[in-house]
């Protein structure tokens, strides 16, 4: 172990910022971050052991207790559920003889759930030792069980288990054709960098992650900061359930994304960039490294790019299973090798970001669009979309439709038009923008995809009329409780309280006043949480409650109050100890039938 860890430390130049990378390598090799590993890394990086433990405990893909040699995670997104995930998981657990969340006694295999793995158009999906599994079926699970029990190395597993398809269904301005390599930079240098920034401004491009801050303004703010170092960060921590567009952009259009980052570096004066890739997209890493090498070889990265005196390099860093790291300041903390806790703002990252230097964080699609705009000029982009939402938006569509996949559509398109395109009918509702976005019902299909109406980072999940509203809201509410970073009280405690209160009502234990209590709690979590996660965590409940109030009320019992715990169930231990099962050993509650 000592040799392996020394090698990792050397490879990472003993930099504490690369703690996460070092720990990921250790986890992959030994399936655990052991006491010995902690001591060695503590010494090597000259940091406190608590820093290592706190980082390991924060990220879902790092563990202080051993996982199996085959660590299997099954994606727990609502779309996986709709494709039969729960029965597949039960079957897998039974066949492998291991409980969900547990490691088998022989240490060979462990099984657990994981948050949406970004394969909603080809689920049910999962990960084995970090590598993406798609289109899981019962026969495929049988095969996996055999491969595991026969200790077949992962490299020898059938390659079709790991195939990820792009599923591009509709292209427009961005996806119809890629720019020629280097053309965005060449055009920008010819036109002049200031004039190029003006083109970007003219284009009306706004951040594609969902928040929609004007891109040119963000670049201007960052460029205006005086500092010895500026950083460009591409946010590829695509964790919003139902979003998978960045996966496709990085698989097929990586050159253009990197070119957008390089363009940004030229404009804001950065020498160093990071691609923060979500851990679930490990399978993309090698190909992306190759693209970076190609760009080096072609003089588009490295020293004196295109002989214009621009020095810029891009490093890929992997996440480790934490939705919160999609929040830009949490992402920066993670890049620094820390827990992904959103920072207090101000200062904003454009002023003080990575290592407290001015840092520009944009979404993958934003960089892709910026590169294209540098070539075409701003007017072509501005001509598309609506007044406030220029250009096109790349949607990742999944759920109940004939053709899930990637759709590039001009902003302003109505939900009804989108549904027709992807072949969805008998629609109950659509989750636009993922769990943190908006749930709309079949009565609102004329609403538009645009920042001024339905804003989305790309997620578009369709539910038909056979689906259960409560199952949807429950999946999302539990997701937020699982992903809350725990920094602030309203989100840490509040998201768990939301889960309890929602389940209480849906499971039929709610009484008069419980829906009102739920609404009050939603309000508290929304208003007082530290960051966007908490501020939107109650949306699934708020939105479904607003549209289907009768559904919630119908779940309530006709009594004035029922406690949050089950009185009779809590007597179970006493019953077992006393060996009693007679009627007097049970407690009826007012309101019980």
């Amino acid at each position, binding site marked *: 172990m000592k040799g392996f860890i020394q090698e990792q430390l050397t490879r990472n130049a003993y930099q504490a910022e690369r703690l996460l990378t070092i720990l990921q390598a250790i986890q992959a090799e030994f399936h655990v971050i052991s006491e010995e590993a902690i001591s060695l890394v503590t010494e090597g990086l000259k940091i406190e052991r608590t820093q290592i433990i706190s980082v390991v405990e924060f990220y879902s893909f790092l563990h202080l207790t051993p996982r199996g040699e085959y660590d299997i995670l099954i994606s727990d997104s609502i779309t996986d559920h709709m494709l039969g995930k729960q029965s597949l998981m039960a079957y897998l657990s039974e066949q492998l003889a291991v409980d969900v969340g547990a490691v088998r006694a022989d240490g060979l295999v462990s099984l657990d759930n994981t948050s949406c793995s970004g394969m909603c158009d080809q689920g049910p999906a999962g990960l084995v030792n970090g590598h993406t599994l798609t289109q899981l079926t019962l026969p495929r699970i049988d095969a996996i069980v055999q491969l595991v029990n026969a200790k077949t190395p992962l490299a020898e597993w059938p390659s079709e288990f790991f195939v990820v398809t792009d599923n591009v269904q509709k292209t427009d301005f961005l996806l119809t054709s890629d720019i020629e390599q280097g053309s965005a930079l060449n055009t920008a240098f010819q036109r002049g960098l200031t004039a190029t920034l003006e083109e970007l401004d003219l284009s009306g491009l706004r951040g594609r992650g969902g928040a929609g801050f004007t891109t040119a303004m963000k670049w201007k703010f960052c460029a205006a900061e005086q500092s010895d170092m500026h950083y460009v960060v591409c946010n590829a921590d695509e964790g919003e359930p139902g979003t998978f567009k960045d996966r496709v952009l990085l698989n097929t259009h990586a050159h253009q994304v990197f070119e957008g980052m390089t363009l940004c570096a030229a404009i804001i004066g950065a020498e160093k960039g990071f691609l923060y890739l979500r851990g679930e997209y490990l399978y993309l890493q090698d190909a992306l490294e190759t693209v970076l090498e190609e760009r080096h070889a072609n003089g588009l990265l490295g020293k004196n790019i295109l002989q214009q005196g621009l020095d810029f390099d891009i490093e890929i860093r992997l996440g480790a299973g934490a939705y919160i790291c999609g929040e830009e300041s949490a992402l920066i903390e993670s890049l620094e090798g820390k827990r992904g806790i959103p920072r*207090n703002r101000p200062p904003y990252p454009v002023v003080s970001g990575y290592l407290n230097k001015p840092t520009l964080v944009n979404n993958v699609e934003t960089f892709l669009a910026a590169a294209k705009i540098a070539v075409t000029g701003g007017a072509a982009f501005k001509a598309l979309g609506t007044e406030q939402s220029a250009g096109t938006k790349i949607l990742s569509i999944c759920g109940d439709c004939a053709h899930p996949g990637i759709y590039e559509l001009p902003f302003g398109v109505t939900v009804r038009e989108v549904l027709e395109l992807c072949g969805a009918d008998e629609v109950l509702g659509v989750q636009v923008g993922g769990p943190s976005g908006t749930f709309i019902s079949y009565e609102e299909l004329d609403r538009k995809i645009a920042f001024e109406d339905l804003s989305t980072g790309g997620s578009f999940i369709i539910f038909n009329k056979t689906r259960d509203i409560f199952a949807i809201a429950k999946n999302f509410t539990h997701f937020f409780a699982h992903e*809350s970073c725990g920094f602030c*009280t309203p989100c*840490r405690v509040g*998201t768990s309280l939301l889960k309890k209160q929602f389940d209480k009502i849906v499971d039929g234990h709610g009484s008069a006043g419980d829906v009102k209590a739920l609404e009050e709690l939603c309000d508290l979590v929304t208003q*007082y949480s530290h960051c966007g996660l908490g501020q939107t965590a109650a949306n699934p409940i708020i939105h479904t409650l607003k549209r289907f109030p009768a559904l919630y009320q119908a779940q309530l019992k006709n009594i004035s109050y029922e406690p949050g715990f089950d009185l009779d169930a809590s007597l179970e231990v006493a019953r077992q100890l006393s060996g009693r099962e007679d009627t007097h050993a049970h407690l009826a509650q007012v309101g019980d039938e």
Partner: protein
Amino acid sequence: MSETIIIDGQELAFEEGQTIMDAAIAADVYIPHLCHNPDYEPHGSCKLCTVKVNGRSCTACTFPAQAGQVIENQTEVLNQDRQRITQMLFVEGNHFCPSCEKTGNCQLQGVGYYLKMQDNHFPHFFAIREVDASHPDVLIDHNRCIFCSLCVRASQESDGKDVFAIGGRGLNKRLIINSKSGKLKDSDLDVNDCAAHVCPTGAILIKRTGYSIPIGERIYDKQQADEVALTKENKQHGK
């Protein structure tokens, strides 16, 4: 010529670089808080000090004071919500005031009194937490930890050590100790460290000093949380 902000109609001066909390404390205006202590870097995690700045929710202990801010602090709505946030802290851990040595001196309890908290409102989590009595002079009862991180900051900023850290994620958040065994006895905490005395609740207690002041004659038995905070913190703030 210093600039001013307005809190609940009262105009007060602030200096460049001050947070809203700094300016308020300096002017003897109380904003309820738990994770803030003027001796240490602001943290902004308990969210009790949330105020409305020109209509927008902001965390007073971290948000910079800027000229022209119109701030709501002591409103019925804000204090009601602060009570709810305090109740969240009570149900998250296991707080049994009558049997806690800190009762009467506990800031969490004091703030609860101040916000007129009468019950816990929310269902209890009944979290399973440990007690670490391994250290000869200091005891940690994790049941009472509210993750204010003051001990973490005090150890780093005042004691020049790194005895405490925050581990876990979400509801599994926990206070961890910097020693191989994870026990306090193997850390380099000394009973005279600031970190051993900064806890606003009864999570970190000094051994063999219990009940030296009888219950009923303690800090919050006699004074409200606002008076206590202003008397103590305004002095500290003189730096």
